[in-house]
C-alpha cells in the first residue's frame, strides 16, 4: 500500500536514527552515516520491512537508493504508488 519511497525513508530514518532524513534524489549524493555497520542493519531492516530474503550478492549491490529500489522491484515489491 505505502509507496516504496515512503517505506525506504522510514527504514533509513530508523536505522540511521535521523528523524528528519530525506532520501536524496541524486543517486550519487552520499547519505551520512551509511557505513558498513549501518549497511548490515539496513539490509536486515529492509528484509523485515518488505518481507524478502536478500542474497549477499544483492546486498553488496545495494549501495544507493536507485540500486535498492531496483533489487526490491526484482523481488516483486511495487516501486510506484
Amino acid at each position, binding site marked *: 500500500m505505502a509507496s516504496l519511497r*515512503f517505506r525506504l525513508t522510514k527504514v533509513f530514518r530508523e536505522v540511521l*536514527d535521523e528523524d528528519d532524513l530525506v532520501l536524496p534524489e541524486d543517486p550519487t549524493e552520499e547519505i551520512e552515516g551509511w557505513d558498513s*555497520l549501518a549497511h*548490515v542493519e539496513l539490509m536486515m531492516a529492509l528484509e523485515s520491512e518488505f518481507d524478502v530474503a536478500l542474497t*549477499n550478492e544483492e546486498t553488496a549491490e545495494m549501495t544507493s537508493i536507485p540500486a535498492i529500489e531496483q533489487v526490491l522491484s526484482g523481488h516483486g515489491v511495487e516501486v510506484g504508488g
Partner: protein
Amino acid sequence: MNDTAPGAALRAADVEAALALTADGPARLEAVSRLVERVGRRFDAGAAEALVDGIELVRGSLPPEALSEGLDAWARAATPTGLYLVARLRGTGAEAGPAWDAFLSAAPGVVPEALLHRARVRIKAGRASEAVADVRLALHEGAAYELWSRAEKTLRRLREMPEDVRGSRALRLAVLSGQASTALLVPLLRAACVRDGIDVTLHVGEYDAWQSEILDPAGELARFEPDVVLLPLHWRDAALPPTSPDPEAAARDVADRVQNAFAALRARRECTLVVHAFDLPPDEPLGHLAAASPGGRAAVLRRANELLRREAGTGLHLLDLEQVAAEVGRARYEDPRRWYAARQHPAATALVPLVERQVALLRALLGLSRKVAVLDLDNTLWGGVVGEEGVEGIQLGAPSAAGESFLDFHRWLREWKERGVLLAVCSKNNEADAREPFEKHPETVLRLDDFVVFKANWQDKVSNLREIADELSLGLDSFVFVDDNPVERAWVREQLPMVAVPELPEDPALYVPAIERHRYFEPIALSDEDRQRHESYRAEVERGRLRESSGSLEDFLDGLAMVARDAGFDAPNLPRIAQLVNKTNQFNLTTRRYTEAQLREQAEDPAWWTRWFRLRDRFRDTGLIGVMSCKPREGEPGALEIDQWLMSCRVLGRQMERYMLRALLLHCREAGVPRLYGRYLPTAKNAQVAELLPALGFERIEAQDGGEALFALEPASIDLPDVPIRREADEVGEAS
C-alpha cells in the same frame, strides 16, 4: 461484527488491504476512523503503525483542519488505537508528550514501542531521567532485536546519563572479539547495562585479536584495567577439523587456549573472565555419526566445554551458547548470509537472548541478582478466587489443564526457593481464606512455611511491598513482583520502579517462560548459604515474634543460645566470603569490593589479619555471615587498620558486631598491636554503621565533609565487650 466488545482483532495486513481502496485524503481519513472504531479496546502495535502509515501517505491531500478534527475525535473516544494515532501524528515535539501519556495509561499492558516514542519526546523536552525510565521498561519487556537496537539509539541521543539514573554499580568491562564481530552485540550489551543499573565503561577489542590483546602486557587492554573481560567465542574459534585423530588432545588444546588467556589476564591484574562455552557447528560431514564418534567436531567441542567447566568458578565463568541456540531455535540461531557478509554470529535474532544471559551474569558478579519473588494468589498461584469459590472451587492440579499449569508454577517456584530465592505473598484477600489452599488443598506443592512473609489483607500492594522489604531488611531493588492483574502491575511499576514487574500472559501455562526469560535470580555459584537463606529469614521472622514475647533484650538474646565460629580466610570458605564482600551494602564499614583471588592474597599475607564468622542459634544455622580484615597501618609500625568489616543483614541486632570486635581485640592483645585504626567510608546505603566505631569505644581522630572519618583505639586499654554469644572454640580450624 462492528459491535462486538471489546473489539475486532485487526492486523497490519488487514489495515493495508482495507486502506488500499482509498487514495485521497478525506476518504482515507474516514476509512481509518472506521477501523479505529472497529478495533475498540483491542490493540495491535503493527496494525496501529499501518494506520499511521496510511495517514502519513495522504497527508499531502488532507486538509490540516480535517486531520485535526479527526485527531480530536479519536482523543475523545480514547480507545488505545485512537490514542496511539493521536500521539504518532501529533509530531515529535513537546506537544506529543501528553498524547503518549494518554496512550500509555489506556494501553492494555506494556507497549515497548510506545515507551520508546515517549522517551524520544522526553529527551527533546530535557526530561532525561524520565526518558531513561521509559527505555528501561521497554528493554525489560521487549525482546526483539529491532526494538533493542532502537532503544539503544534512543539512549545514544542523551548527551550524558543523568546523575539520578546512572547505575549504582561501576563496571569496567572489556569485550574482546574472536572470529565473530561484536559490532551488533556491544550496543545491546551497553543498553542492557543501563537498564540494570550498571554504570559501565567499555573497552571493545579489535576483531579476532583476543589472544594478542590478552598477552600484551602494555597494550590497551592492560591499560584499561578491566573488572570483567567478556570473551565471546564460538565454534569457529576452536578451529577444529571435522574429525580429530586424537580427540582428547584436541579438546585439551582448545581448552588450554582459553585457560592460558585466563592465566595471563590474572597474572597481570585481578579480573573475572566470562567466556562463551562453545556452541556446536550446524553442519556435520559425519552425519549422525558425529555425536557418536569421539573425534567428531561436536564431540571434541563438548569435551572442551567440559574441561573448561571443570576450571570454572573462581574468576572464570562460562556462558552456555547451546542454551541460547536451544532457546531461539537452531534454524534461527545461525544466519550464514550475515556470517559471510559481516562476520555476524549468532544471527541478530539470537542476540537479545544472548545479551540477557551475559548481563544476568554481570549482575550476579556485581551482587545485583534479585532475591525475593513476591506473589499474588488468585489467578496467579491458582485459578479462580478462593474468597468466592472456596478451596474446593479453585483450580490447582488435575483435571483441568489450567490447574496443572498452576501446579507446575508452584513446582518451579519451589525449585527457586530451594536455590535460595525468598518467596513472599502479597494478596488482596482475607488472611484466613488466603492461607487455606496452602493448608488444605490436596494438590498444593507450596505450603505456608515456603513463604518468608505472608501478606493477605486489603491494603494497597505498594504499602505491602514496602512492609515486606522492611521485615526482611532487603532493598526493593531485589524484588520481583508477580501478579496476573495488569492494574496492580502498572501501579507497582509506577510507584516502585526499582521492583521488577514482568508482564504475565493470560494463560498460566506461559507464566514460567514469561518470568524465566528475564533471568532475575542468576546465581554465580551455589553456596550452602544460598540454600539456607530461606530458613534463616523465616527464623528471623519467628525471632521477631520471640522478641515481642520475651521480656528484656538481654533475655531475648540469651534465649537464642547463640554460638559463633570464626577463623582466618581459608579455601573452602572463600567463595562465600567473596559473595558477602561483594553483596553486602548496609552493614559494611568500607564497602571495598574484592575478588576471590584478592581475598586469597590477603589471607596469605602474614602482615594482614583476616577473619570469617559463622553464627547459629537454637532456631537456625545462619552460616557464614561476617567478614573482617585488617592491614598494617602505613607509616606506623605494628599498628593495624581495619580494611573491611561487614555483616549480613540476617544477623543485625544480635550483637554479632561486638563479638567480631572482641575477636579482633583478642588478636591485637596477643600480637601486641599498640594501636588499632578504623575508617568509615560512607555510601548511599551504609549510614547504619557511621557511628559503629565510636559506639564501640573508638576515638574520632579525623572527620571529612563527606562523612568519611578515621577512628582509633588502644587495644590494651579497653575492656573486651561482653557478648551473649558463645565461641565454639574446639571446632575452629585456623587457616594454614
